[in-house]
């Protein structure tokens, strides 16, 4: 009788990369559903285009790099990247904008660095940052959430806009995001109470947007509960952001937005639970994760408040990605039977 010669262990756990990625996708559903509720076909078209481009590029790069296509295509990592980019980009983004973002994400940030597991930067955020700095106009035109608008955009109009360019009167439908509105108003020296009085704002942050953030939070908590992600990154990121916002808000509540506004605006929740938690580009030690995510929270507040962009999750994540090797090296846990600190 011939027996297998493989070495121990002979048993393995149930989880694999694709099941982890699938659970991340499930957790993205509530937030995405709320976005679709408010932005209709525009968000759906983002999603479909991003996923199609991502899978095509992934397949193309795997083939060029002569890597096995099937195991890597079925790991869903490209779908997660595409999904995160699609929900971060303005609804009704033109096809070429999405394509460029996906090329930066999949080709440059992921495969040119060696593919899954080898990318030092978060691919979705590289793609996002690339199109944000290259096409600031297109990237900051968010349509007003449907609730606010009397005009309903159907599938045909969406396709025309996405593939053929702007239809007439399209600009009228756009509205500044809450973060943008606050930033612009503050730069005009208006007190925050005036801005809040415009009726665009709900209990926590911008109307519609606060619901999107709550839905991301819900999905994120589910990921925590399923132990797909650890507590360190979301807690440190949101904690630092809230702490910074609280300090300045307590100093001057008219010139600095409240911590709740910061937590429930822009990509804070999406970033804390879905983007910064990308294991490949994040710090890998428990303590390192706290510093890594704390740094993202800090930079996000700084750029949002004093920088040139209304939101800053993408830039903050990329900045902190660069610090990861250093963080990992200096935050090693104490090994059994040793004193704290590095050996040799």
């Amino acid at each position: 009788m011939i027996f297998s010669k493989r070495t121990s262990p002979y048993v393995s756990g149930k989880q694999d990369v694709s099941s982890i990625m699938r659970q991340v996708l499930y957790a993205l559903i509530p937030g995405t559903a709320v976005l679709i509720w408010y932005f209709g076909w525009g968000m759906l078209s983002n999603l479909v285009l991003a996923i199609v481009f991502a899978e095509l590029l992934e397949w193309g790069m795997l083939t060029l790099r002569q890597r096995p296509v099937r195991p890597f295509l079925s790991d869903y990592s490209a779908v997660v990247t595409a999904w995160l980019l699609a929900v971060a980009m303005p609804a009704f983004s033109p096809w070429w904008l999405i394509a460029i973002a996906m090329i930066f994400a999949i080709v440059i940030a992921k495969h040119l660095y060696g593919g899954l597991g080898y990318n030092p930067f978060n691919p979705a955020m590289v793609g996002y940052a690339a199109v944000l700095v290259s096409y600031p106009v297109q990237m900051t035109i968010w349509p007003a959430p449907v609730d606010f608008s009397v005009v309903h955009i159907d599938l045909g109009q969406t396709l025309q806009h996405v593939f053929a360019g702007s239809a007439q009167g399209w600009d009228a439908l756009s509205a500044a995001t809450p973060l943008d509105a606050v930033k612009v108003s503050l730069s005009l020296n208006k007190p925050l109470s005036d801005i809040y009085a415009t009726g665009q704002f709900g209990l926590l942050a911008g109307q519609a947007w606060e619901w999107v953030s709550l839905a991301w939070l819900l999905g994120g908590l589910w990921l925590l509960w399923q132990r797909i992600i650890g507590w360190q990154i979301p807690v440190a990121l949101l904690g630092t952001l809230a702490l910074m916002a609280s300090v300045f808000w307590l100093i001057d509540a008219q010139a600095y937005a409240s911590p709740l506004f910061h937590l429930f605006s822009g990509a804070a929740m999406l970033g804390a639970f879905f983007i910064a938690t990308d294991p490949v580009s994040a710090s890998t030690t428990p303590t390192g994760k706290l510093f890594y995510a704390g740094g993202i929270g800090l930079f996000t507040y700084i750029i949002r408040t004093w920088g040139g962009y209304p939101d800053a999750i993408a830039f903050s994540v990329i900045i902190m990605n660069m610090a990861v090797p250093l963080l990992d090296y200096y935050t090693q846990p104490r090994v059994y039977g040793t004193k704290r600190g590095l050996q040799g």
Partner: protein
Amino acid sequence: MIQTLHKLWRNHGGLHLDYHKEDSNAAPVRHLPMAEELIIPLQQHSGYKPTLTVKAGDYVYKGQEIASHTGFMKVPLHASTSGTITAIEERPIAHPSGLSDLCIILKPDGKDDWDNARMLAYPNPSQVDGEILRQRICAAGIVGMGGAVFPAAIKLNVHDNIPIETLVINGAECEPYITCDDRLMREKPVEILRGVQIMMHIIATQRCLIGIEDNKPEAIAAMQAAREELGDQRIEIIPIPTLYPSGSEKQLIKILTGKEVPSGGRPATIGIVCHNPATARAIYRAVVLGEPLIDRYLTITGKGVAQPCNVEVPLGTPIQHLIAHSGGYTPAAKRLAMGGPMMGISLHTDQIPVVKATNCILVSDIPESEQQPALPCIRCGRCAEACPANLLPQQLYWHSRARDFDKAEQYHLFDCIECGCCAYVCPSHIRLVDYYRFAKAEIRTQRDAKTKANIARERHDFHQERLERAKREKAEKLAKHKAQAQTTTDDGKKAAIQAALERAKAKKAEAAAQTTTGETTE
């Protein structure tokens, strides 16, 4: 529910696994008919091979010494039954390399005759000097029976400068499937505890902690009852939470005492000695009954075997024989391993015999996940969460794979106990432990090569220096001789010349004086 007042400490990491203990732990241990042929490998312990004391054709009695332990780190072997030594030759043994090694082949005569091969019994060991008992444990060929096979007598050889405060008995049996210690603790608790008392006498300690995972309530109850029976207050039976790998020596010591064995050190350096219940029982039998270690409890289990069970068999029994008496293989039998599914050694053939280390024969199928190729590491850190040594397996993997061994050592590669937790949880199905085994082996090879090179260089330098010194000394000696010879000859000549000159002068002076006198007198 069994209550304990003993405080327990928590280790980092660990896993809850599918234990499959009930597959084999229900029925009492079985004794099988003697195999046709026993294969007794010479090397059954960590250390050096003992010296053969028999040759092919010899008749041996049960318990008779067949290889002796004179020398460092050697453990003797004894005939598991009476019969004839038919050959001493290379046979496949249970080793990860799959290579063969020297074995004594014994053909049983069926009489199972001890004759007078039993050693002198000490029915009352507490009256006997500890060192004599320790020598007996050595002579009985007892090694750690939990799998590490470290010579028990050496472990019990404690030095006066570090007093041993605690004896830890490792009844955790944390690996899935294995139940032989469970059965042993249920069936022979008094023998185990009497062995424990002997050990406590030898190492002069007043405290013994017996840790047993709480998934073995019957074993805990049996051990506690036996403790009551012996009335020994120094011994505590402590149920510990079931969590793999709590049965790893270092981890169990932390759980029971809160102390950590220093990296690279032995438990004795923190005043602890740790032994397995089967070792304790073997010590009892060696001391009180005078019987050497010639058989053991082991589990035959897994999906690939029809009737999983526990057996007590003579050492040297071929695995094939065990399987045949456990209902044979099932169609699921695709893998044969000695030990559990987390740390066992895979065997390529069932011709391999039971040795002192064999606690389990696991016949299993091959799960589907194993056929999948490994994906790249996504640095998710699940391995670090599971690691009982609190290592960063993802970093160790990275550096081992890159052959950056210095970095791997900086990340404490040698504190890895190869428990397999990291590989179990890895979502990319990377065979992490293999990378660590590889890196450790490479580093050891490099160290050996370096040591050898250093020795060779030192010898060469010394040789060179010696040659030069000899040359120098010779030259010096020669120069000295020459100089000496020269001075002596020179001096001689000079003196001779001087003497001649002086003689001439004196003559001249005499002549002159005569002339002058003559002239004046004339």
